[in-house]
């Protein structure tokens, strides 16, 4: 058999302009933090990339006070049209520095360069553009005349889409006139700090955006700080519950984007080859580190065998490897801890009797990688069907009737997203009405747009981000 070897096409590391150390960003200045510096590593090689300053509780206090000053003296009273100008400027700077940001994101997170380049960074810029447009039109957003900002927002974001989650949080907050203190994830702080530099480049008034790297304890200190008005958190359900407990009774506004175990339902009349593409995109995009990943595939029994065969062929063609190589489809797992969790949960699949299929693709000799894995014969009661794995592991279940599909899809404590694959328009509407999920994709999966609100039900959190609905979290309405 002939062998078609693609040429390696690594993006240059130099573009990332990696510094040996990074400082925190408080009140418009880069400063040393009171916490012990952390080392952030490249998950594809396990090499240290840079040393990053972290915040102490004093730093949190300083940052919140800076944000409060900026809110009261400048940003909160600035006309929307003026705020919009800053946001447009930030959006353009993200575009201008997109290659730098994309390479840095792939180095720090492990995601393939084609995803950071084609999805993360352009969508982050799009969020700033979208919200820049809202800044002077809030009177017309449907929340009554002259809606007011909330004040100072504490924002904590995860490691799976570091810059994109930052954009989802900061863009609407600033558009509505709030100031922010944001804590990026411990393992992926770098693009947030380059974003801080972009804020400086855009001459954003000091204190409007503050970035405090640190671990979970700093997140907890920040969200519990008495002088903040609003908390926005994206991350694990467990931490979300803790924050909810801390904030109960304080009157502070809270939105949570938590975990998910999304169902991707394939009916027997679906466009099967494109469904396979959607399934692959649903679970192997960003190594499955996606809260709305389609991690539970529900296939109608009559096409299950055919679909599974097509799926195996397709998944075997995915190229796993160096995130900076433009040919790479699946990159590195972000941390050793996460890799261990994926290994542990998939072992439970074996133990509980599911059939494991692993892609025969070669894996790099070093770094944190997990070969794309598909479990079939999965039952609703197994851990791999119930718990969020947050990795490139798909669980395949089958159903006989549409009602059974909906019942199984909804039989989860989560409710972030769902997918429906059928050629029948009426069935799409029928299913979408019954699925308890914040987003239902039809004949596609994992599509994001700043105009479309995103958010979940039950243990997937509450509140919406993006679109007109997303403004509500940052307005006093």
């Amino acid at each position, binding site marked *: 058999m002939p062998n078609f070897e693609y*040429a390696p096409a690594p993006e240059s590391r130099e573009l990332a302009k990696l510094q040996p150390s990074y400082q925190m960003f408080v009140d418009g200045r880069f400063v040393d933090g009171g916490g012990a510096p952390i080392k952030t590593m490249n998950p594809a090689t396990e090499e240290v990339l840079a040393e990053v300053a972290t915040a102490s509780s004093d730093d949190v206090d300083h940052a919140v006070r800076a944000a409060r000053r900026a809110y009261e003296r400048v940003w909160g009273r600035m006309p929307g049209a003026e705020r919009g100008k800053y946001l447009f400027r930030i959006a353009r700077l993200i575009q201008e520095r997109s290659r730098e940001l994309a390479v840095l994101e792939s180095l720090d997170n492990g995601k393939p360069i084609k995803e950071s380049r084609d999805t993360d960074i352009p969508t982050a810029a799009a969020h700033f553009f979208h919200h820049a447009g809202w800044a002077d039109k809030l009177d017309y957003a449907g929340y009554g005349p002259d809606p007011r900002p909330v004040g100072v927002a504490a924002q904590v974001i995860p490691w799976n889409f570091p810059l994109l989650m930052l954009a989802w949080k900061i863009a609407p907050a600033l558009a509505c006139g709030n100031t922010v203190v944001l804590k990026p994830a411990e393992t992926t702080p770098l693009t947030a700090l380059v974003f801080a530099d972009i804020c400086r480049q855009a001459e954003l008034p000091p204190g409007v955006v503050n970035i405090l790297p640190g671990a979970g304890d700093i997140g907890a200190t920040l969200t519990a700080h008495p002088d903040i008005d609003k908390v926005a958190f994206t991350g694990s359900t467990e931490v979300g519950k803790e924050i909810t407990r801390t904030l109960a009774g304080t009157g502070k506004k809270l939105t949570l984007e938590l975990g998910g175990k999304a169902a991707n339902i394939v009916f027997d009349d679906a*466009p099967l080859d494109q469904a396979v593409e959607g399934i692959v995109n649903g679970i192997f995009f960003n190594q499955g580190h996606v809260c709305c990943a389609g991690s539970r595939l529900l296939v109608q029994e009559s096409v299950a065998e055919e679909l599974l065969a097509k799926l195996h062929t397709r998944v075997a063609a995915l190229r796993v490897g160096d995130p900076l190589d433009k040919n790479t489809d699946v990159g590195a797992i972000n941390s050793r801890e996460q890799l261990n969790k994926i290994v542990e949960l998939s072992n439970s699949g074996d133990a509980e009797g599911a059939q494991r299929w692993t892609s025969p693709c070669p894996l790099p000799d070093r770094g944190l990688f997990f070969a794309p894995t598909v479990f079939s014969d999965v039952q609703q009661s197994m851990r791999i069907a119930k718990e969020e794995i947050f990795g490139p592991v798909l669980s395949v279940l089958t159903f006989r009737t549409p009602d059974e599909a909906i019942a199984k899809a909804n039989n989860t404590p989560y409710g972030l997203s769902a997918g429906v694959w059928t050629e029948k328009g009426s069935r799409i509407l029928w299913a979408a009405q019954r699925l308890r999920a914040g987003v239902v994709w039809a004949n596609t999966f994992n599509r994001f747009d700043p105009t479309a609100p995103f958010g979940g039900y039950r243990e997937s959190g509450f509140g919406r981000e993006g679109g007109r609905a997303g403004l509500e979290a940052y307005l006093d309405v």
Partner: protein
Amino acid sequence: MALTSTTTEASDRTALPADLSEAVRDDGALRRFLHGLPGVDQVGLEQRSAGLATRSIKKDSKLWAIDTAISMVDLTTLEGADTPGKIRSLAAKAKQPDSDYPDVPRVAALCVYPDLVEIAVDLVRGTGIGVASVATAFPSGRSSREVKLADTRLAVEAGATEIDMVIDRGAFLSGRYGQVFEEIQAIKQACGSAHLKVILETGELATYDNVRRASWLALLAGGDFIKTSTGKVSPAATLPVTQLMLQAVRDWHGRTGEYRGVKPAGGIRTTKDGIRHLVAVNEIAGPEWLTPELFRFGASSLLTDLLMQRRAQRNGHYSGPDYVTVD
């Protein structure tokens, strides 16, 4: 109406699996089978094609791809103005595509009109290069069955080793699938040992669903290759259409164990476009299809660009079109 009676003996292939032989039992069964195939989602299909086009092929992998593509070319001239002289120069180029580089592989076949087959056969005798001919009232297919069969026999008797037939798009679009099926079978029988490539003229089929149905129809009727276009209709070969056909032969192999080929034709002019098609072959059907036995390019100007790019890879600089022959 029994659809398979005429050619069951003529085929040297193994019998179809039960579900597929049931599908060709009569007109109604054939329609039910073709309309029961999974639909094609346009957005998803085109998105995947866009993804296939981003693979990085350069240096060694590009040289390999260029040589592989050259070996897959059906060097084609289908002009009313074709002369024996044109065929002679084409044959010379087919045998030795670039005289400065004797290591350039030969092309797969010469593709000409039936009346020029004899000349082409003489010119490539003993070289291993095939002679393909477009028969069946090419390119419109609008004539009687007798004329199409006579056209085919003319080409086969003159020594063509491959026949490129066009399907009756009018019959297909009217839903007369049985008629199209029988015609392909009859032509296949008239081909004898020559290989049959079935041209679907996808630009006239209007929808991707139709392309998938026509692909399966041609495979069921015994076509050795499914081919996109005549080159006379735009759009001709596109990456999404090639992708669909590759899915069809892959799925056919899955159900029958047989290998059938795909030939995009028309509109593929650049090395870059050719290589994108090879990436599709590699990732959609699989590496087994990366051979002239199972994948061809119907092209004339593609070869020229492949040779120019080959020289650029070898010499490290680009010399321009005057350093390779026009035909």
